């Protein structure tokens, strides 16, 4: 047995994140070439600008600029009056021009601030900046019986890419993951990005260093790349903390370098030392004049911001009497929150807001999960807020029983028909007229003399059995309480 000590007893962990996120624009960053390359044949979404053919010039995608500023506003950033683009020079086969157009010292967004709740504590994470740049192509490495070669797909080249850089304000892997989930939620809420890690539209690098508690100087920073899921972010950070602590414990010094996370082993391996770092020779992009960001444009974007998840959850709690967990669950995606509110509005009775929530969080969420898609929403189950509203109303009016309602929902999922139609066509209305079920009750009493005797003998539970029989005969359409009353009066009379 090895004795494990928690490295954080001795060291403070300092983590900063760099997040790259592809924007959901119509076209690419600097030309009108379509942007959405998912599932497209290699090199079919290209044009002269994307390929950087000689003489081509970039033209700024205004939608990408708006999206970046919108994301910045949602994350509490300051939008400076002037911004510009720069060239970042480095040769690589997937970089068509031999330089990337990015923003060096005058990005669109500065100084944001985000509150997160991780490890049971509230924390503030400061953002340094958000800037806009173009994505690169992709190298596809092949191996033909030992002779390796690489192919290049330029579909991704020129896709608008937003890069967010945090201050070194994170301290645990849990915080990092909670922060990243929050970012993704905001990017999706504001509609600026799909932020799908698997598709590569949301990518994260982490800068990690350790220092002894109380130390002023930050330790040597190690940059971790190749983390393709939230889980790998968590594992990579945890591995790196232990690795660096071990180096320090052994009296060594952590080297400033870039390391890659290997999913299979859960380890990080050295990729590039500090000496191997590029000199990117940034200089202002001469093909794009500097931009002046008009206050009116920023104001307009600020006004267009949707209500963000935290604020919305707080409002759901107070306006609809939901629990904190319910409110949080219902505001997890903007679509879900909007579906919920649409249903509540259609029902038109705040007293039923919590019932609507129960349906959404219960049976409907179950159905959504069964679809097995991370981005599935209500619409994907085949029903709409109107379905939910009718269902809740039908139960509330006593037209159907709660148990019938579950069946109606099932029919609705399958057919897309509205609950009122289903109830009508399948004759599922609750039987409320006692005379209509009197015959059934009499027959059941005649056929179950033992239960009747038990009841007469003072065994109240025998009634439950008889009610169950009635429910079965009426296919659940009877209100169990009135059935019990009817059975009792019939036996007693």
């Amino acid at each position, binding site marked *: 047995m090895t004795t494990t000590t928690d490295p954080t007893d001795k060291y403070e962990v300092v983590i900063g994140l760099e997040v790259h996120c592809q924007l959901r624009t119509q076209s690419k960053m600097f030309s009108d070439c379509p942007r959405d390359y998912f599932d497209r044949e290699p090199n079919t979404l290209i044009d*002269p600008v994307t*390929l*950087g*053919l*000689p*003489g*081509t*010039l*970039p*033209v*700024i995608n205004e939608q990408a600029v708006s999206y970046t500023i919108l994301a910045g506003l949602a994350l509490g950033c300051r939008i400076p009056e002037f911004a510009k683009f720069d*060239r970042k*020079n480095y*040769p690589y*086969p997937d970089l*068509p*021009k*031999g*330089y990337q157009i990015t923003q060096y010292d005058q990005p669109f967004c500065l100084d944001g601030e985000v509150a997160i709740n991780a490890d049971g504590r509230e924390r503030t994470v400061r953002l340094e900046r958000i800037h806009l740049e173009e994505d690169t192509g992709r190298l596809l490495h092949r191996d033909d019986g030992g002779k390796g070669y*690489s192919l*290049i797909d330029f579909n991704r080249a020129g896709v608008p890419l937003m890069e967010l850089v945090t201050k070194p304000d994170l301290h645990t892997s849990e915080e990092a993951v909670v922060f990243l989930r929050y970012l993704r939620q905001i990017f999706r809420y504001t509609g600026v990005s799909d932020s799908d890690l698997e598709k590569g539209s949301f990518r994260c690098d982490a800068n990690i260093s350790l220092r002894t508690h109380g130390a002023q100087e930050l330790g040597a920073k190690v940059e971790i790349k190749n983390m393709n899921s939230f889980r790998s972010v968590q594992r990579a950070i945890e591995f790196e903390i232990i690795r660096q602590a071990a180096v320090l414990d052994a009296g060594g010094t952590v080297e400033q370098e870039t390391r890659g996370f290997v999913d299979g082993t859960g380890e990080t391996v050295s990729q590039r030392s500090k000496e191997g770092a590029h*000199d990117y*020779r*940034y*200089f202002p992009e*001469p*093909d*794009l*004049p500097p931009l002046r960001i008009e206050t009116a444009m920023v104001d307009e974007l600020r006004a267009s911001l949707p209500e963000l998840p935290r604020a919305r959850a707080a409002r759901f709690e107070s306006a609809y009497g939901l629990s904190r967990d319910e409110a949080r669950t219902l505001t997890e995606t903007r679509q879900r929150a909007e579906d919920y509110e649409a249903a509540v509005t259609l029902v038109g009775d705040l007293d039923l807001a919590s019932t609507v929530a129960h349906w959404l969080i219960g049976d409907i969420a179950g159905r959504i999960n069964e679809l097995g898609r991370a981005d599935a929403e209500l619409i994907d189950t085949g029903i709409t807020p109107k379905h939910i509203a009718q269902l809740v109303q039908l139960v509330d009016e006593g037209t159907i029983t709660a148990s019938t309602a579950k069946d109606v929902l099932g029919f609705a999922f399958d057919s897309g028909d509205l609950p009122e139609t289903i109830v009508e066509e399948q004759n599922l209305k609750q039987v409320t007229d006692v005379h209509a079920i009197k015959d059934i009750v009499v027959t059941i009493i005649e056929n179950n003399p033992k239960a009747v005797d038990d009841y007469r003998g003072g065994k109240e539970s025998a009634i439950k059995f008889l009610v169950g029989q009635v429910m079965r005969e009426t296919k659940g359409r009877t209100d169990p309480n009135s059935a019990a009353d009817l059975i009792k009066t019939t036996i007693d009379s």
Partner: protein
Amino acid sequence: MDSAVPEIDLNRTAREHAAALRVGEYTSRQLTEATLSQIRSEQDLFNTYITITEELALQQAEAADDRLSTGEGDPLTGVPIGVKDLLSTKGIPTSAGSRMLEGYRPTFNCTVVDRLQQSGAVIVGKTNLDEFAMGSSNEHSAFGPVRNPWDTTRVPGGSSGGSAATVAARGVPLSLGTDTGGSIRQPAALCGVVGLKPTYGRVSRYGVIAFASSLEQVGPFGRDVHDVADLLTTIAGQDSLDSTTVPEPVPDYKAGFERGFEGLRVGVPAEFFGSGLDESVRSVVETAIERFETAGASIDRSVEIPTVQAALPAYYIIAPSEASANLARYDGVKYGYSFKDGESVDEEMSMTRGYGFGDEVKRRIMIGTYALSAGYYDAYYLKAQKVRTLIRQEFAMALSKCDLLLTPTTPSVAFALGEKIEAPYEMYLSDLYTLPVNIAGNPAISVPCGFVQGLPVGLHLIGRPFDEATLLRAANAYQEETHWHEQAPQSKY
């Protein structure tokens, strides 16, 4: 029609050809055939073309004839024109004078070629140039040097040497060049033709193979100022594909021609008449100044551009810096020359660039890479940009007191082939008077103003930003006064 081919006088200007085409004196097809035959014979003497586009030219000529036959057509419809081989032409080899673009045929036209085609001009060929427009003698061409039609032992100037020489040699009445530091005006002066560099932002750079993006403009060559004004009108104006073009309307450049020298205030800055100026060139230019004065212009010798001393060093920081990035895309991966048998991607890229680029191009890439490197940026690039701001302010100040500035175009007449090829700095000095204008962004024109030992001398007029009209008006008044532009080289073919 072919049986009676009329004798066509190729000394004619574009305007005279256009008039002849309109009255049916000859057809565009006949003019084009005569032109093609002329430039083929000229090719052996002066090496002015890299590609002669016979097939396209004849097609365009026939289309022009159709258009003219309906009474339609622009001033350039049916008129032959040469285009610098730095301008992308769809489906036609575009070499930039480099081995690097071996086999490259653009998939698109540059904007100015599109505009030429819309006007009905007939493109007869792609003219020779210094590799990637880097050079002042046209000796840095992978396709061999161009020779000066006035003396075939001498250079035509550069980098648009082919465009200047073919107009001088009566191959075509008009051509297009590009001017990054003097590449239109210097060869225009050395070949005895008119050449204009428009204001930065006046003409689209889209599709023009980039050397130094913040300095260069496409501009016209012609044998007289009227033709140059017509060609500028055709190519000028905002382009949605070039963000550095401006919405400023394109005026009627010839509207003020009848006012001649009337009220013109001409500044003569002493800094352009310093010790580097050849004495015989000085005396020709002084005579021109006297002509201006006697013809009614007022001469102001008090204007100053003191920082012009720093223009050459600043230029040789800014231009190579931008070039180092602009030429990074030539890596052998996507198009053009590619070294295939390397052991690694890095080796193949480096071999490709080592062979593909000529010495002058490599020299500038090295200078630019160095100037942008970490630790040197502030001392070189940033300082050069400050010089640029000062020079721009000084031109603005000088031009607030007068309508235009008058200087020699070049310090000397055409020098001998081989004379400066081993002395880059000497070569750079031949742009001493032209490159400050690129740094400031102003428009400038060179017009023939006399001869020194049988070689043409150019008069350089510099105007206010977007006031090409005044430049053209003054140049036209001067040419009507002197008729130097009507002199033709005698080295006959």
